[in-house]
């Protein structure tokens, strides 16, 4: 074959690619119509109970991620469709379809996890699949797997899944984890206890998410968290979360820790002082005001700013604020003036 012929063949293929591009649009429209027809026929069948042949056909259909997502969307709109015997039929079909997803790409596995999240229960096979998905590099995949596990209402199961992620060093965003925990359908207290029981086996991001979850869900476990705050091995981010936790649940022991961290931050990190300065606004009292007045002379801008903010939040007496404004430390006076300005306040006394 000569080079010229080769080029002609290339050009022919290029033309075929143009045709392919044009045909894809049409194929999609056809697919959407077929999907709508299938869902319309499936609804009454689910209501009356699926015959074995229909059950097989459903499992085959669910092997296609697009069908699984379409059905999941329908179930989300009409959760009653997955109740009772229909739910059992859907779980059985999912159990047959799951093996096809084991070798699929992350997008399709995430889609199937999303479908599983709409089902009321699961089987051992499905749980194994979800656990595999927790280790994927796709955030979508991990999120949907956590969503599915969370919706089952099994606190122990979800806790074990998070430990599984921790043991495999999966770095999932603490913010997403915290939202997953908040969205789980089991009681927050039960979930918190299940996770606290394995706290030391959880990775720092999961620990941080757990502390934030307890703070936001109002789970009071001050005694446990006190010990964690004391432990030298606790990760920095987890410590900040613990300090914030004690902002929501004031505690005398924690107050002493916070006051100490304002001057003697752990591992010398100014972030500890800054967080302590911010959290102390939840601890009114003369000793707090005195500590904040001292903290406002810190060499770090963020510590000074947070001390000034906390002093104003605690409604420190006007003469004490004036004393800072007219004091010897120009940096402290400057930051106080700045925070007052930012809050749209005016100096009370001059």
């Amino acid at each position, binding site marked *: 074959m000569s080079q010229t012929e080769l080029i002609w063949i290339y050009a022919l293929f*290029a033309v075929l690619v143009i045709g392919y*591009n044009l045909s894809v649009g049409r194929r999609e429209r056809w697919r959407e119509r077929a999907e709508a027809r299938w869902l319309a026929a499936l609804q009454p069948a689910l209501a009356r109970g699926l015959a074995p042949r229909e059950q097989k056909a459903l499992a085959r259909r669910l092997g296609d991620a697009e069908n699984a997502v379409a059905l999941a969307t329908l179930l989300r709109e009409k959760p009653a469709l997955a109740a009772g015997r229909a739910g059992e039929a859907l779980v059985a079909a999912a159990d047959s379809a799951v093996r096809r997803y084991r070798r699929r790409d*992350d*997008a399709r596995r995430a889609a199937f996890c999303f479908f599983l999240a709409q089902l009321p229960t699961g089987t051992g096979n499905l749980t194994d699949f979800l656990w595999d998905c927790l280790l994927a590099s796709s*955030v979508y995949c991990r999120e949907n797997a956590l969503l599915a596990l969370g919706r089952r209402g099994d606190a122990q199961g979800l806790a074990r899944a998070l430990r599984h992620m921790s043991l495999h060093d999966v*770095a999932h965003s603490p913010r997403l984890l915290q939202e997953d925990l908040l969205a789980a359908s089991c009681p927050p207290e039960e979930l918190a206890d299940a996770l606290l029981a394995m706290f030391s086996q959880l990775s720092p991001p999961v620990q941080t998410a757990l502390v934030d979850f307890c703070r936001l869900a109002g789970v009071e476990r001050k005694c446990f968290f006190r010990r964690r705050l004391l432990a030298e091995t606790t990760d920095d981010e987890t410590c900040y979360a613990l300090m914030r936790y004690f902002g929501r649940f004031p505690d005398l022991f924690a107050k002493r820790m916070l006051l100490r961290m304002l001057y003697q931050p752990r591992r010398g990190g100014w972030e500890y002082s800054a967080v302590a300065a911010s959290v102390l606004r939840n601890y009114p009292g003369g000793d707090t005001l005195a500590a904040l007045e001292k903290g406002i002379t810190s060499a770090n801008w963020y510590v000074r700013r947070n001390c000034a903010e906390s002093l104003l939040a605690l409604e420190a007496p006007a003469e004490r604020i004036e004393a800072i404004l007219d004091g010897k430390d120009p940096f402290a006076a400057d930051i106080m003036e700045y925070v007052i300005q*930012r809050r749209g306040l005016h100096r009370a006394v001059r």
Partner: protein
Amino acid sequence: MLMLITQWANEFFFYYLLLYVTFLFLSMVMGALRLSARHTQARLENQFQHDCFLPVSVLVPAHNEEVTAVDSVRSLLRLDYPLYEIVVVDDGSTDATAVRLIEAFSLQPVRRPIRRTVPCKAHSAVYEGMAAGVPITLVIKENGGKADALNMGINVSQYPYFVSMDADSLLKEDALRRIMGAVLEDDRTVACGGLVRIANGAEVEHGRVKRETLPKNLWLLLQIMEYDRSFLSSRMLFDLFNGSLIISGAFGLFKKETVIAAGGYDTATLGEDMELVVRLHVFCRSNHIPYAIRYATDAVCYSQAPDNFRDLQKQRRRWYLGLFQSLGKHRRVLFNPRYGLLGAVSFCYYFLYELLSPVLQVVGLVFIGLAYWLQIINARFMLVFYLLCLLFGVVISLASFLARVYLAGQRLGVLDVLKALGLCALENFGYRQVLAFISLSAFFGYRKRKLDWGRIERRSFHAGGKSGAEK
């Protein structure tokens, strides 16, 4: 001897072109298949992504952008994304860029320190404000170039990922969601490029592209074809094996932690966007960090393109020199087995068909003339072969254009298709040759103007708007 050299040279050019055509062919077939798969994946994700997101900072470096900066920030305020901040860095503008922004968004001066995680020039003021629930930060600093302004933006930003863009660009409403999708699909992603489309001629209302229309200006039309072609003809293929070397400075997403670890943007190059991407490859591979550099075809950014020959010349000279500097700086990657396909395919492609192409095109024409004069060439065969290669280029351009149109969900009339066909022909027979000469001329005055290459006229996004300039 002369005959031997000419014969050898002609053979070299023949195989050079054949290799190029083969590459284009593979690239287009893979690109078309990948586009289709990507489309299906995006449709799946649209349905299940619920509220899954990671916060992101949008960095907008601006130098004398008083004409477009406010519109750009307004367009950013309308993005469909739950949590993001906008950081505008005024890089020593001599016009009213900062004043316009302060007035438009009622920004207030703040006195907070900026921690220098990557080096950049000193700042003189920081302003902050909130518009439509989105925090806006404006930093006014000494002039140091776009790379320096982006480094300042990195220092100021507070979120783990940042998007870098130009102050004369507009992002499509879902652009942030789409580009962040790459990170959510694979959290090893350290950088991701978006699809850059030409904004000239588009109808903009309240900082948003309301309707896309083809401009009447020929230079712009040719650039539209060229942009479409470049995205399908190489970037999609490189994306397959993590080999993308370019993320447009007009719209790119980066993982802040990795960029900081790699040293931030290099202020000593004209092509800071390409240099950073190559450096991220080198950094991650040298440190055995699992990583991915992706390309999101559905994350769309509208950017202003030069609408006259003079500005096009300036822009392309700058791009070419940027390419030259980046490839030169990281030349050890070429054919280095440590870098796998990146060194063997991507780097080789950019070296042979982007950097050397203008030189070879000009030298090739000289040798063909010489061979004809020496009567050692089958003139008819050579002409047919060259015409076929160009024809193939036309088909590729048309396929790319149609793929992009299909992705955008647009409909074309017969007249539009004919117009596109004509433009594809013109892009391959004339425009590309002109670009080769422009690129080649970039070396004249290179030493003198290494980092400063003229000013490009900017136009307001609104019809009849006044012009501005950008360094």
